[in-house]
């Protein structure tokens, strides 16, 4: 087990990268604390897998260093890093039995046969495949094969980190839930550092202590689910996390006032005078509808009742603003004003969050 530090790391698949666009992974500095569970969240093609493969040593970065407990491992081969990784699509050794598949990483490292025997039994119980241990892996379902892959990833107890590259894509929804819970309890039990790549926010938020959000080759925020929810550092985080995502409106911000489409609203905190493209970001959860004269005038387009609450889609001068209204509340046609809870208002300048000034 180890702390993993990424120092000025960047990667390009081109031999001679020139502009920033040539980099699949833009320069980043990141610390992965020992024993924490991380989720690496982002849309497809944002560099998640690249980052993962650099950590496991399947890929060597174009620049920067990787440290394991302050020891430089940048050019160290995968075997020296002692890392387990599970891939998106199941990788099983077809000609081996399930048992041999699970034992493979241990045997290759010359573990004691008696230990292998008990450990494989444990893992088989964990992934629910004790009955099929002596079967050939060939011809098992994709579900079962992926469980074997997961099992092979977890079979070694002394790994520095466990990396998962969207491992549950091919698994049935109900099994997904079960396996994710098992991974989580496994994490509590053994305290491995885990990095879990996914593009599914629910998966990320339920699995991880800390979520790392990536966008276009950059790490835009690393934080607890709560931090991601309350103070998204980048408009992408606001938009990507939450259902529906954060409302973004072009605004002029001066001190503790903002003007949106000619309407002035109070922000409750001072933000100075941010420059560039200034936007106001408010989650639907901090937005409410009311009748009267104060607030932004909107027209209601649609109300979606999702059971727990209602999502109201409204239109403000061509910009869609979503509101989450409580399930019991009545929504009447005269409720055509929107107000924001100032606690949930964030200001963005060129997509990055502007910290409020302490008065």
């Amino acid at each position, binding site marked *: 087990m180890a702390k993993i530090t990424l120092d000025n790391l960047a990667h390009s698949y081109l031999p001679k990268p020139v502009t920033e666009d040539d980099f699949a992974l833009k320069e980043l500095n990141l610390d992965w604390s020992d024993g924490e569970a991380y989720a690496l969240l982002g849309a497809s093609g944002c560099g998640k897998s690249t980052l993962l493969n650099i950590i496991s040593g399947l890929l060597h970065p174009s620049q920067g260093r990787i440290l394991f407990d302050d020891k430089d491992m940048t050019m160290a081969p995968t075997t020296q890093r002692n890392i387990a990784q599970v891939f998106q699509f199941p990788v099983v050794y077809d000609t081996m039995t399930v048992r041999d598949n699970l034992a493979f990483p241990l045997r290759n490292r010359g573990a004691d046969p008696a230990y292998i025997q008990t450990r494989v039994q444990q893992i088989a119980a964990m992934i629910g495949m004790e009955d099929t241990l002596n079967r050939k892996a060939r011809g098992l379902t994709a579900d079962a094969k992926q469980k074997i*892959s997961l099992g092979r990833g977890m079979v070694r107890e002394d790994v520095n980190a466990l990396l998962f590259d969207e491992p549950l894509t091919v698994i049935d929804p109900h099994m997904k839930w079960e396996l994710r819970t098992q991974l989580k309890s496994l994490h509590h039990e053994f305290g491995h550092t885990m990095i879990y790549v996914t593009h599914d926010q629910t998966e990320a938020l339920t699995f991880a202590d800390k979520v790392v959000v990536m966008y276009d080759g950059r790490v835009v925020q690393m934080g607890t689910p709560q931090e991601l929810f309350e103070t998204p550092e980048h408009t992408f985080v606001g938009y990507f996390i939450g259902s529906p995502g954060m409302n973004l409106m072009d605004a002029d911000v001066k001190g503790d006032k903002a003007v949106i489409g000619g309407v002035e609203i109070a922000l409750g905190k001072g933000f100075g005078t941010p420059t560039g493209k200034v936007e106001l970001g408010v989650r639907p959860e901090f937005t409410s509808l009311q009748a009267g004269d104060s607030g932004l005038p909107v027209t209601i387009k649609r109300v979606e009742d999702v059971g727990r609450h209602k999502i109201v889609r409204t239109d403000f001068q061509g910009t869609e603003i979503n509101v989450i209204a409580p399930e019991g509340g009545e929504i009447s046609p005269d409720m055509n004003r929107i107000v924001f809870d100032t606690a949930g208002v964030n200001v963005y300048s060129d997509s990055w969050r502007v910290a409020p000034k302490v008065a």
Partner: protein
Amino acid sequence: MNKTVNQKAWFLILPVLVLVAFSAVIPLMTVVNYSVQDTFGNNQFFWAGLEWFEEMLASERMWDALGRQIVFSLIILAIEIPLGIFVALNMPKKGFWASLCLVLMSLPLLIPWNVVGTIWQIFGRVDIGLLGHTLAALGIDYNYTQDSTAAWITVIVMDVWHWTSLVALLAYAGLQSIPDAYYQAAKIDQASRWKVFRFIELPKIMGVLMIAILLRFMDSFMIYTEPFVVTGGGPGNATTFLSIDLVKMALGQFDLGPAAAFSIMYYLVILLVSYVFYTVMTNLDKRDGH
């Protein structure tokens, strides 16, 4: 859904039927016809029953040729299959060098068979051939026209040169279809190079390998042109394989009856081996699907 029944559709297969009849069925039946009759010329034929078959089965000459043929095919397989896999494993995976390798590898396959024979016939000559002359200059006693071992080695090396590419290309195609994740997982699992080959690569190329073995076995079992050009079946009968012997019998000695009986048995052997291969291959597929 109602299926339309139109018996006229049978006419659509008529062209193929005619083609196959002229290219395969009629010639084969002619051979069958010859194999059960005797002739003294003048297009006069006499019923001979199974006499020719009995004669051929008792003929030492045929059994010798069959023995040589089997030994030849086994040696060819034992060299070309592992060598082809080895070459495929060491070929570049992509880029310019991969394309170059593919082109170079395909070259021997594109040369007409009798040209291959001629190339090696000249290459191995002691007086003017590069190989033969060099070996002679090194003091090695090499003469494929007189020494049967030298003749065998020449014919085998020639076949290896000519056909290993085919095995390599098939194996290469099989290897290319293995997803990267398998190699990555193997690295994570700390599998040795041998284990990667044994547990990932070999199982994944098993299908194409079976086809390669079948093709190489069939072709080598029916080999005629190249050894005929190089050694003419000699010295003596040392490299007289089945088809060389067959041609000698049918066209050299004009023994139509025995030659026809011979070729039918030859044909049956090949059919039998193909059937065995086919069964093994479909069983492999079934095992995969289950």
